[in-house]
């Protein structure tokens, strides 16, 4: 089951005109505040009626302006997790969780138990929303949406209202959701870190238009997408497998471009990982350097260079089967004679990779 969205809508101050497909798993709608991301999911949910467009989930048409079809919100069965949770204050957590199920044929105790377990909210069931922390509220809101038997899930920056500690508390549950839910999930975000961590597919929206769409790994490794993502946030994703842990607190992982040494990764050998390497943390060297403190020196080949607006150049590199991005100055690029096809070495400091940059992948993907 996949989601297909095409929308046009004129607001007083800007126009929304987007079209994208979203396969199973998490599709991130990425963009700055005011780019129109939330309007897109509001239109998918039916809370906003667009001027024109078509929204289809699997075989079900939710909206089709050409055929005058506009399913009312309550019959669309979209699980919407709002930024501000929006739990019903007069119902207990259990009441909130069961709210949508009564319109979808009643609460299925097996599914209820599974969702409660997955989100770790078993101890909260008899509490009132007022007695929950922000992270707990958001987890309950996710559970409430899941238990309404949705055709798809819409998550509108579910972490935006939370502080870092609460975010860290919710992220693992979102990862489980990504890996275990068998429905399309639209995830609105303006954080590259969240997108890198959670999304299989990313749709970059700018000023009401889709400027970039594709698998997260490809989009994040594309120098042309960097202006939309933000220079400091730019960084490609490497696929890796844990090899082992060293007694000095470091972990060794295998990538298609060779082994890497990382700060301790809390995962057993054999675990598949995805590692985000920030472009500004990569140093390029023509010759293999010696006498260097950096532990990771990866042989790479330059694929392309792209000038930025400032003094920088974004260099796309091939490391084995994976792509890396390196941000260097134009002066360095000229001095070193960097051109596509050139073999060189990418240097990555071990400590430049933080825990937030390392994501574990489920074994079956």
């Amino acid at each position, binding site marked *: 089951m996949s989601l297909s969205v095409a929308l046009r809508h004129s607001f007083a101050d800007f126009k929304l005109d987007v079209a994208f497909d979203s396969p199973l798993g998490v599709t991130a709608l990425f963009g700055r505040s005011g780019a129109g991301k939330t309007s897109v999911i509001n239109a998918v*949910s*039916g*809370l906003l009626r667009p001027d024109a467009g078509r929204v289809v989930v699997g075989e079900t048409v939710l909206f089709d302006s050409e055929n005058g079809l506009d399913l*009312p*919100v*309550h*019959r*669309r*069965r*979209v*699980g*919407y997790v*709002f930024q*501000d949770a*929006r739990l*019903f*204050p*007069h119902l207990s957590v259990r009441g909130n969780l069961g*709210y*949508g199920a*009564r*319109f*979808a044929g009643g609460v299925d105790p097996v599914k209820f138990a599974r969702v409660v377990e997955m989100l770790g909210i078993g101890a909260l069931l008899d509490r*009132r*929303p*007022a007695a929950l922390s922000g992270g707990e509220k958001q987890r309950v809101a996710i559970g*409430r*949406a899941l238990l*309404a038997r949705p055709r798809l899930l819409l998550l509108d920056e579910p972490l935006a209202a939370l502080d870092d500690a609460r975010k860290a508390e919710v992220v693992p549950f979102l990862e489980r959701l990504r890996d275990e839910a068998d429905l399309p999930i639209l995830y609105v975000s303006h954080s590259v870190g969240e997108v890198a961590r959670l999304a299989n597919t990313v749709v970059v929206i700018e000023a009401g238009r889709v400027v970039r769409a594709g698998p997260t790994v490809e989009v994040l490794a594309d120098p042309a997408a960097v202006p939309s993502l933000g220079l400091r946030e730019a960084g490609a994703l490497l696929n890796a497998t844990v090899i082992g842990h060293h007694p000095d607190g470091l972990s060794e992982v295998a990538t298609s471009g060779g082994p890497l040494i990382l700060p301790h990764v809390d995962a057993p050998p054999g675990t598949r990982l995805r590692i985000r390497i920030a472009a500004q943390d990569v140093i390029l060297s023509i010759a293999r350097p010696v006498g260097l403190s950096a532990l990771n020196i990866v042989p790479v080949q330059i694929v392309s260079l792209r000038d930025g607006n400032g003094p920088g150049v974004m260099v796309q590199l091939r490391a084995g089967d994976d792509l890396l991005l390196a941000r260097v100055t134009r002066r360095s690029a000229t001095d070193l004679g960097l051109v596509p096809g050139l073999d060189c070495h990418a240097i990555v400091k071990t400590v430049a990779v933080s825990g937030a940059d390392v994501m574990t992948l489920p074994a079956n993907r």
Partner: protein
Amino acid sequence: MIDALTPAEWQALNLSLRVSFWATLCSLPIGVFTAYALARWTFPGKAIVNGLVHLPLVLPPVVTGYMLLITFGPRGPIGSVLEAIGLPIAFRWSGAALAAAIMAFPLMVRAIRLSIEAVDPKLEQAAATLGASRAWVFATVTLPLVMPGILAGTILAFAKAMGEFGATITFVSNIPGQTQTLPTAIYAFLQIPGGEGAALRLVVIAVVVSMGALLVSEWVARRLAARVGS
């Protein structure tokens, strides 16, 4: 308590309670509907509807009573119809209830409207995304959240109905056993020499009843507020 009251006092109290009860009960659904419409809908003539609802609050009660008399009196356009089908209300307790209901209506609507306006429409949107139709959203989200406001409006309306005097005496007069409520009975006693003692007894009854209603409503309100989680 029954023994402590003279039959006449008991009659006035009983009538007051009956008039107020029915006035409040019958205007409650209309009040909730009106409050919801004023809080949430935009429609042509909304300002006029709002004005009409509030008119009894600003008009001298005697004017409201007189308007009721010319409309619902035996020769009034509606009163004559009611007379014809055997349901006259002028100079009857049902007329007193109508007068009380109309006088209390603005207070009831104001309290409920305020609490409806305080309900976050985002919660209702959330309910809709979870599969609730408009009617279900109202019944399962809006209504429970405005219960404290409805309770406040009901108590206020009941108190106003218990105390209603001007419109009642103008519309349905002051007939013992028919339309003589506590306030009009007190007024009647004060009009006759030596009636102060009897009036004072009725005043005490009025205070006791009002205080009791207030305490009960406080208690219910606190329980409701705890349930709504605010």
